[in-house]
């Protein structure tokens, strides 16, 4: 899980994937409560074990022996261990739910009765948060808790969302745009906002989150249902195998006791995976929550594992938020130091990331110390939409930087001329996907162009490697950007994406999703704006940013509380890991049966057919110790695998073939070999119990 490690160190969260041994103890009462047959019935495999345990208990009462009672005790422990696995998984969710509930204390809301008009202050009334209705508008000022989910309709505020995200740094929320949604239970730290309520009480985000982590609303996912069917049918086969064995045994002159037959049955049916299946599911959802992702349905989780196409927004996901200066290109006859100096001077007052990057580049690459040559008489000319230039007026010269056309005009007005080399450089930078900024100076009323600053998108480090991994897993990555096709292509190539959608409108995005789905592909995307909502709803996996609008959060089937678009890649990995864990433990469980047969069958019939001793390849001590050892192994392996079920099996992105080879070797072959060793070791101990050997 090395790829997933970075966001697990959130405060106020249960550490992901680790099993605290104390959890076993605290979950014990829950697991005893789950012995209720009405609860057990939901898990057919373990229900069969429980029925078997009841029958053998009756037999042990009527025909007591050390062997019979030992088997009975371990049969009950098998059931108990299965319940324990589920209880531990649920317990971790409950701890999180408790944290969330604390945020959900009842608050008083200030509901707007009549809005403010022309200097008349708004009239508000105090109501309980639980009495708020859809569409109500409430006032929240600094220090107050937001009473319910909604959108800010007026104002801007910094909000502490640590209650739900675990992130202590406050976030900015403002009306209009894509950062207008607020969550009930979070606290306004500054300013005053009007919030329009968009969720009914009891259906708020926090309510859904609590239900989710507690597992109360957990529904079996499609693959889990399919796996359950397979496990149930395997159970039926083994019930038939065991039940029909008795007539054959009687015919062979060696009728078997109920205890032995139940022991055989319990060892054969897939108890390992049957016991851990629901724990794996709960833990998988939990792992998503640890990564601050809320999946609204199990279906979405599995769809994420199956995704064929990832639509990734360029800004923030693939590139750092802003363009940065990469290189200065002077026109012939101008020395580079002069260009760098001029570029830096013109940008000293430019607080945009682009401006700052120019200052940094001049300093780091061209040795121009920042702020060295600016006196108090410098007048900075800010950027305006009309001039499309910014710059600085010094006593002896004026410097301007900006779009090629605007600066060119400025130069011509000042009696200078922009040479053909300049326009060639500008075109080259545009063609390569960068943004050219022309720098010019005017000395004594005569202007000349000095050169060009090449601004370009900076691809986040490590992205190319991640996309290569995605490709290995058969996932196509598509970049969505508003840039022109040339720029888009350059970035897509640099970042190693498979495809791009340039000058994308929401309609284009929607059309792309539909086209991919036509071909049978599953599409995942992230979005935050209201205009993303239709596409989020159409995509098979739509991850809405928590900072986004309510409409977007409503439309998606997952919400990322960290509002980190890169998270999509991790989501896919976590969901795949969930499926792999299920498959691996199923394989392990079935493979285990081989060894158990070699332990139990010779033990049952070696009395009548001494030649069957040859099947006792483990050389187990006695029939009783062989059977008991198999039953104990069967029970202990459940406890032993609980940590793996909760943590998930190790997952490294690779091709399906490579992954299958690895997992088959570990869980298939390992599943065949492990019980031979385990049962033999147990037999060495068990055979020393008086009354067994």
């Amino acid at each position: 899980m090395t790829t997933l490690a970075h966001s697990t160190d959130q405060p106020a969260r249960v550490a992901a994937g680790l099993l605290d041994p104390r959890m076993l103890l605290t979950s014990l009462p829950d697991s005893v409560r789950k012995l209720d047959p009405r609860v057990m019935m939901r898990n057919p495999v373990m229900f069969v074990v429980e029925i078997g345990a009841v029958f053998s208990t009756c037999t042990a009462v009527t025909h007591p022996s050390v062997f019979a009672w030992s088997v009975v005790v371990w049969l009950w422990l098998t059931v108990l261990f299965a319940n324990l696995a589920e209880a531990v998984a649920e317990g971790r969710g409950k701890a999180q739910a408790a944290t969330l509930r604390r945020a959900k204390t009842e608050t008083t809301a200030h509901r707007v009765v009549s809005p403010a008009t022309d200097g008349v202050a708004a009239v508000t009334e105090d109501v309980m948060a639980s009495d708020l209705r859809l569409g109500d508008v409430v006032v929240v000022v600094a220090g107050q808790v937001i009473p319910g989910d909604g959108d800010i309709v007026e104002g801007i505020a910094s909000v502490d969302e640590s209650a739900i995200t675990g992130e202590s740094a406050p976030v900015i929320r403002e009306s209009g745009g894509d950062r207008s949604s607020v969550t009930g239970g979070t606290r306004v730290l500054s300013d005053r906002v009007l919030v329009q309520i968009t969720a009914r009480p009891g259906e708020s985000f926090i309510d859904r989150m609590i239900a989710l982590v507690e597992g109360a609303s957990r529904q079996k996912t499609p693959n889990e249902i399919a796996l359950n069917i397979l496990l149930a049918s395997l159970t039926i086969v083994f019930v038939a195998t065991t039940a029909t064995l008795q007539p054959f045994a009687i015919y062979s002159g060696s009728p078997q006791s109920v205890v032995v037959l139940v022991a055989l049955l319990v060892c054969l049916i897939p108890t390992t995976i049957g016991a851990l299946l629901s724990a794996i599911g709960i833990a998988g959802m939990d792992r998503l929550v640890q990564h601050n992702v809320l999946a609204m349905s199990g279906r979405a989780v599995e769809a994420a594992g199956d995704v064929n196409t990832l639509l990734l927004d360029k800004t923030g996901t693939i590139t750092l938020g802003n363009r940065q200066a990469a290189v200065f290109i002077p026109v012939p006859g101008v020395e580079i130091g002069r260009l760098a100096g001029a570029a830096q001077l013109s940008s000293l007052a430019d607080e945009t990331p682009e401006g700052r990057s120019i200052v940094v580049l001049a300093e780091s690459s061209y040795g121009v110390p920042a702020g060295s040559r600016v006196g108090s008489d410098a007048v900075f000319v800010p950027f305006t939409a009309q001039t499309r230039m910014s710059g600085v007026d010094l006593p002896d010269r004026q410097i301007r930087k900006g779009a090629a056309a605007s600066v060119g005009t400025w130069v011509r007005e000042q009696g200078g001329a922009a040479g053909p080399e300049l326009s060639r450089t500008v075109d080259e930078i545009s063609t390569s996907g960068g943004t050219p900024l022309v720098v010019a100076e005017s000395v004594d009323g005569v202007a000349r162009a000095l050169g060009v600053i090449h601004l370009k998108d900076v691809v986040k480090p490590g992205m190319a490697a991640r996309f290569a991994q995605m490709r290995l897993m058969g996932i196509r990555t598509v970049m969505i950007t508003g840039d022109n096709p040339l720029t888009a292509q350059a970035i897509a190539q640099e970042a190693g994406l498979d495809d791009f959608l340039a000058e994308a409108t929401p309609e284009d995005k929607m059309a792309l999703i539909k086209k991919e789905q036509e071909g049978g592909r599953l599409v995942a995307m992230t979005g935050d704006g209201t205009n993303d909502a239709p596409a989020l709803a159409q995509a098979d996996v739509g991850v809405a940013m928590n900072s986004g609008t309510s409409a977007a959060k409503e439309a998606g089937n997952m919400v990322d509380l960290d509002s980190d678009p890169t998270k999509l890649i991790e989501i896919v990995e976590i969901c795949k890991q969930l499926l792999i864990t299920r498959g691996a433990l199923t394989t392990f469980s079935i493979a285990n049966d081989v060894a158990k047969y070699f332990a139990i069958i010779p033990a049952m019939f070696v009395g009548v057919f001494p030649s069957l001793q040859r099947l006792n390849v483990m050389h187990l001590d006695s029939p009783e110790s062989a059977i008991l050892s198999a039953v104990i192994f069967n029970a202990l392996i459940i406890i032993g695998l609980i940590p793996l079920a909760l943590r998930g099996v190790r997952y490294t992105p690779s091709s399906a073939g490579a992954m299958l080879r690895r997992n088959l070797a570990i869980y298939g072959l390992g599943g065949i070999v492990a019980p031979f060793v385990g049962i033999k070791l147990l037999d060495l101990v068990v055979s020393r119990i008086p009354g067994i050997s």
Partner: protein
Amino acid sequence: MNDTTAGLLQAGVLVAALALCYRPLGSYLTRVLTSERDLRVERAMYRVVGVDPRSDQRWQTYAASLLAFSGVGVLALYALQRTQSHLPLSLGFGNVDPALAFNTAVSFVTNTNWQAYSGESTMGHVVQMSGLAVQNFISAAVGICVAVALIRGFVRSRTDRLGNFWVDLVRIIVRVLLPLSVLAAIALILMGAVQNFSGGEHLTTLAGQHQTITGGPVASQEAIKELGTNGGGFYNANSAHPFENPTPLSNILEIFLLLLIPVALTRTFGEMVEDKRQGYAVLAVMTTLWASLVVAVTTFEVHHSGTALQAAGAAMEGKETRFGEWSSALFAVSTTGTSTGAVNSFHSSYTGLGGGALLFNMGLGEVAPGGTGSGLYGILVLAIMAVFVAGLMVGRTPEYLRKKITAREIKLVSLYILAMPMIVLTGTGIAMAFPGPRSSMLNHGPHGLSEVLYAFMSAANNNGSAFAGLSANTSFFNVALGIAMLLGRFVPMVLVLALGGAFARQQRIPETPGTLPTHGPLFVGLLTGVTIIVAGLTFFPVLALGPFAEGL
């Protein structure tokens, strides 16, 4: 030439001949099953029965047509046997007893060809030719129909149509089975098999005994008996009888015939799903299983451990000296692996473990390489199950041949895999629990259990071979095995058609590097392992009490 060289040479010739026919026959079958054109004789048949050859059926209609047609087949065959005494060429045989007639009718319609009677002393020529031989063609074709419908389910997208049962049936019989069996029959006649309408030669033997030697249309029935993986012999001794299988050469030809269509169908499968590697993978699994069992049984027989056999010097009891241990083992594994049930030696006389291996071969579910069509759909169902578990292990909703395996498909696959073992185990369990059926056993101890287990294994898997040593012509066994054959044939078929329907409704999804590759050695190994483990886990206990207890 010693036995080993001869045995290896025979196996080599057999494999080479199959390899030679693999491509032409497989591709021919593809053309037959996908062609838009009807032959004139076919058009005439469709007109007579009122079928529109261009109409496609839903899986339910396809299954209903198949069941109705087979039902009529059972009734007709039952009626023929019950009225035999009034038919011409009855050779003086009377009407067949109701329980036996039911058993036999079911047996031939289900491609099982379990025979609780002796052909030469029970069935006249009319019943043999217009009853049994007709069903030999039909039941073989029906199996192929079901396999093709399943393949169409994989290939088609977003439709509820799986093809037309009547068209598939007619084409397979007219264009494939009839021409091939004519060729095979001629070859068999040339090799010495009999073909006449003789009412029987009455002879006095050297010892002064009277004996009737029955002739009949043997070669023609023999051809389709092997080609259609039927196995119902004209004579009680089946392919051990010199009139049916006169020479070692005809022996090889018969083994070749019974493997021919099941093997070639994997090519058809690969071509129809437009990925020949898929066909090769399935064939590789079948071949691995078949070859391993041939090696195992041959080894057990040639080593013939056990005091009596060691004293005799060879495990030749129940085997023809014409064929010897090697050819007998080759035939036995091929016949139990193709659900044919023809025998050239008596499986009951095999060594304990050798007989156990034959039992296990059927227990695999008849997939090595299985009956005509049934072998292919059997292995495909196992492949779906293997892909399901393995697919989860690569972190995706499992998919096979570009179709997803969801709860609905797994439900059908699970029921399919449940069906056969349930029939075998409950049937054998009931038989062993009551003294009546137990009295049919001619042996006691583990061998007796093997006999009864073999009977139900053979019936439920529609194999039809017998372990012998069991007096199966009793009301209990006739009815119980009849039911086992019916359930073992049609429950899986309906499930497979439903599976085809479920897959056809899905859209085909694109293949990516993240898709589990279902060709190549890894998958072949996986599918082979799953097939062995599924059968092994189910039958290990009862095999331990039968063959293992006897042979270890």
